[in-house]
Structures are given as structure tokens and as C-alpha cells.
């Protein structure tokens, strides 16, 4: 009961001062909107980066060709060595006999392969590796190249490296931008609330003198900050849900390279709602944090 009464009174006060300082409130809300829209873009981008990277990781293989006359026991030893590499998820071994048989069964090649004698085999033993993390692919390849009896290692090196570095760049850029904007928003909301507090400084002092607890004094301002955050997150949430869904429907795919294949946007189900919830929380927390900063000074003797 007590808590509800105090909360009720605080809400009334918070609304009153939001309206009284209309222009500053609007400035704070607009700043929050801009920040949260960018946070939203950053979030959706990183969701997609994660999605694409995972897809690439799933599809990306390293193909290893053994030297032609490698003995079977050496091949077996190579296999064991490959299994020891941390970044290797899965190994498929294809012996030169298997490959020869495959070609024999292939109409196009059968006539040519059949001209070879039983013992004659131009193919090479090979491994296909699925790896865990694309980022470490160069290291993994170097390790493999240094092993014995390896003739050739093939993978889509240049495009993979490029893509990984672009994604990293996007991530860092987003984090820096969003961090900066959150800071600006905090400063703006802090100032808005400071003005409110300034006009009520006398009241706060008197409240303290007559035994009002700091929590109760702080409450209307925290609510005011939270309201700014919540009001500021409405448009960004709509932008996230409808904007992204529209983009997803319009944008059918982009071919990057034949190794990586087609890049598609991640499906909006789930993603947009998670992002929206995050925006709402972030707006509220930033608003409350900013107003907490603003009142702090006035609550000490």
C-alpha cells in the first residue's frame, strides 16, 4: 500500500514536469530516438553478420591433396595428425581408389578411366576438412601445409579473409558509434532532468529537512528518465519491426563469390522482437541512469 501511494504520487510529479519542460523533453526524446535507431541498425547488422558467418563456417571446407605416391600408412598418419588440430570439426577421407571408382561410374568419364589399367591411378588421396572458426583458417592451413606428404591445400582464402575483416570492421564501427551516441543521450537526458531539479531544488532541500528518504525524492526523477527512454523507444521499435521485415522481403540475396555463395538476410522472426525488447530496455535504463546522475548531487549534505 505504502509503496503504491508513493509510486502514484511520483508518477504524477514525473508527468507534470515532463510536460512543463516540453521542449527539453522533446530534445531528449529525439536524441533517444536517433540513438536507438542506430542501435537497432547495429543490432540487426550484427545478427546478420553472425548468421552469415555461421553459414560460411558450415559450408567452408579445406581440401587437401596428398602427394601421388604416399604410402597408405603415411596417409593414415596424416589423418591422425589432422584430427589433432583444434580448429578441425570434421574430416572426410577420400582415397584415390574411391575417386577412381566414382569416375568409373560417371558416364562422362567412364570411357577415359576405363582405359587405365588396374594399377594405374592418376588420382590423389584427399581429405575434406570442415573447420570450426573461419577466423583461424590461415593458421590452420599453414599447419597443414607444413605437414609431410601434402601436395596442395585449397580453400577460398582471399574472399574469406576479406569478408571476415569487413564484418569485424562493421562490428567495431557499430559499437563505437552506438557507445558515443548513448553517451550523448545520457548527457542530454541528464541536463533535462537537471533543469527540472533546478526548478525544484528548494523543494528537494525542504523534503530532505523534513525526513523524506532519498529513494522517495529520487523516484519521480527516475520515473521521468524512464518515461523519456520509453517514449523515445517507440519509433525505433516500429522502425525495427516494420523496416526490417520490409527489407527482408525486398532483398532477395546477393552473390558474393562462388565459394561463399549467396548472402541472404536473416529471417525477421524472433530477431526483430528480441531487438525491440532490447531497445525498450536500453532506453529505459539509459533514461533512469541519466536521471540518477542528475539527482545524485542534490542528495548529499
Amino acid at each position, binding site marked *: 500500500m*505504502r509503496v503504491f*501511494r*508513493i509510486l502514484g504520487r511520483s508518477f504524477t510529479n514525473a508527468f507534470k514536469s515532463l510536460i512543463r519542460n516540453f521542449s527539453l523533453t522533446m530534445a531528449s526524446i529525439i536524441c533517444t530516438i536517433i540513438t536507438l535507431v542506430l542501435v537497432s541498425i547495429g543490432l540487426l547488422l550484427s545478427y546478420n553478420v553472425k548468421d552469415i558467418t555461421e553459414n560460411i563456417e558450415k559450408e567452408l571446407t579445406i581440401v587437401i591433396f596428398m602427394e601421388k605416391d604416399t604410402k597408405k600408412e603415411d596417409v593414415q598418419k596424416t589423418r591422425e595428425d589432422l584430427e589433432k588440430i583444434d580448429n578441425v570439426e570434421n574430416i572426410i577421407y577420400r582415397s584415390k581408389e574411391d575417386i577412381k571408382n566414382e569416375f568409373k561410374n560417371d558416364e562422362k568419364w567412364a570411357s577415359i578411366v576405363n582405359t587405365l589399367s588396374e594399377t594405374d591411378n592418376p588420382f590423389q588421396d584427399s581429405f575434406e576438412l570442415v573447420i570450426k572458426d573461419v577466423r583461424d583458417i590461415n593458421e590452420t592451413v599453414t599447419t597443414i601445409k607444413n605437414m609431410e606428404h601434402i601436395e596442395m591445400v585449397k580453400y577460398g582464402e582471399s574472399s574469406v579473409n576479406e569478408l571476415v575483416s569487413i564484418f569485424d570492421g562493421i562490428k567495431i564501427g557499430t559499437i563505437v558509434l552506438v557507445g558515443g551516441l548513448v553517451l550523448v543521450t545520457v548527457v542530454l537526458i541528464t541536463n533535462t532532468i537537471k533543469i527540472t531539479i533546478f526548478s525544484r531544488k528548494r523543494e528537494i532541500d525542504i523534503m530532505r529537512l*523534513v*525526513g523524506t528518504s*532519498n529513494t522517495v525524492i529520487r523516484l519521480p526523477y527516475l520515473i521521468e528518465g524512464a518515461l523519456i527512454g520509453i517514449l523515445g523507444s517507440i519509433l525505433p521499435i516500429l522502425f525495427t519491426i516494420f523496416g526490417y521485415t520490409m527489407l527482408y522481403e525486398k532483398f532477395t540475396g546477393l552473390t558474393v563469390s562462388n565459394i561463399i555463395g549467396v548472402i541472404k538476410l536473416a529471417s525477421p522472426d524472433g530477431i526483430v522482437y528480441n531487438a525491440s525488447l532490447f531497445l525498450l530496455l536500453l532506453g529505459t535504463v539509459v533514461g533512469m541512469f541519466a536521471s540518477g546522475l542528475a539527482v545524485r548531487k542534490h542528495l548529499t*549534505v
Partner: protein
Amino acid sequence: MEFIELKDVYKVYKNGVTALASINLKIKKKDFVFIIGNTASGKSTLIKLLYREEKPTKGSVSVGGINVAKLRNSRIYKLRRKIGIVFQDYKLLPKLTVYENVAYPLESYGLSGAEIRPKVLAALEQVGLSHKTRSFPSELSGGEQQRVCIARAIANSPKLLLCDEPTGNLDPKTSKEIMDVIEKINKELGTTVVMATHDKDIVNRMKKRVIVIKDGLLDGDYLKGSYKVDESV
């Protein structure tokens, strides 16, 4: 332990001014004590130590069993709910009516309207302002505003009433009326009163315990009625 006890208290402000030095003082429950002294002698500082507006630089201050000097900022409100404070400048909120001014500390403690109403009405009755509940402070005389301030201070039935020159802005006749109100509160409600004042007429007439401060030092402590006008500073 005494109701109020100061042990070897020093107060040095940040600017280097020593406002109080080696103050030892005990005040009993239900007592009525005047604190007098020249301007800048440290009277207000002493009162501020009691409600923890200032912290002693050295020494200990205890009020009603609470070690005030060690009280954390976030807990000060607990002390202040047990103390009524009356100021020279009233410190009323101009946008609230008399009733609301007296009620809102209680509201902020979370009491319900039904709990608050009898307390507010009783307090206003004590100070003789029952007929002005709906007026705003700007519509009241200085004496009436001071009565509102006193009503607000006693509405929560505090054990201690601190007054810093409550009659400083009032004419002699109004001052006397205000002093009558405060004395009545002391007698009828048993509220301990500690009052800093300049007003020698009041001090002489009322025959209470008198503590004299001179340049931040305790210069005299006269028991009830033993203080005489010619000894004044």
C-alpha cells in the same frame, strides 16, 4: 545516556573557519534550552549538528540514541523523522496550501490520507491555525507562516523540536505569541525544545536553561531561571 549528548565537538568548515570548539553538552528529555550568543558565534552550526546538516569535524553527537556524526547520508531521513525543525525563513512550499504543507512530509513517508488527516488537523489546532487550512503561504502574515512551519514540525509527534531563530523575522508581539505556542508544545506534548535565538527579551522572560556560546566556545550554562539579563553577551 542523555537524550542529547555532545562530547568534545569541533566544527571546522571547509574554508577554515572554526565555528565550534571543544563543546561538551548534555540535554535531558522534555527540557527547554536556549542557545544564545553573538552573531557568528556558532549557534546555527550547533543546531545543524543536531539534525545532521553538518558533521562534526571531531567529537561525537548523539540524539535520542542515534550516533548522528556517524549517520550515513542515505539514512539521515530516519533521524529527521524524529525531529521537528523550525526555521527563521519558514521554508514553506509556496504552491501548496497550509494543509498540504503540513501534510506532505507525512505523505512522503507513505502514510495514507486517513492517517495523515488527524495528525495535520491536531498540529494546526496546536498552533491555532485551524481556520486557515486552505490558504496559501503568500496569503499569510509572517507569524502565521511560522505557525505553519511549527505545525509541520510537530505533525509527526517528534521527540525533539529544533528552532533556529524562529522569531528572527517577527515583531515583539508576534514573537511572544510564537514563543507561547512553542512553550505549550513543550509542556503539553513533552517535546524537547532546543532553540537558538538572539532575542534577549524572550530569554529573560521565559526563565529556561540557557547555554551561551562565544566565538565557538561554550561560555556559560545556566540552569532554569538562573540566567540574568546583565550577564548577556
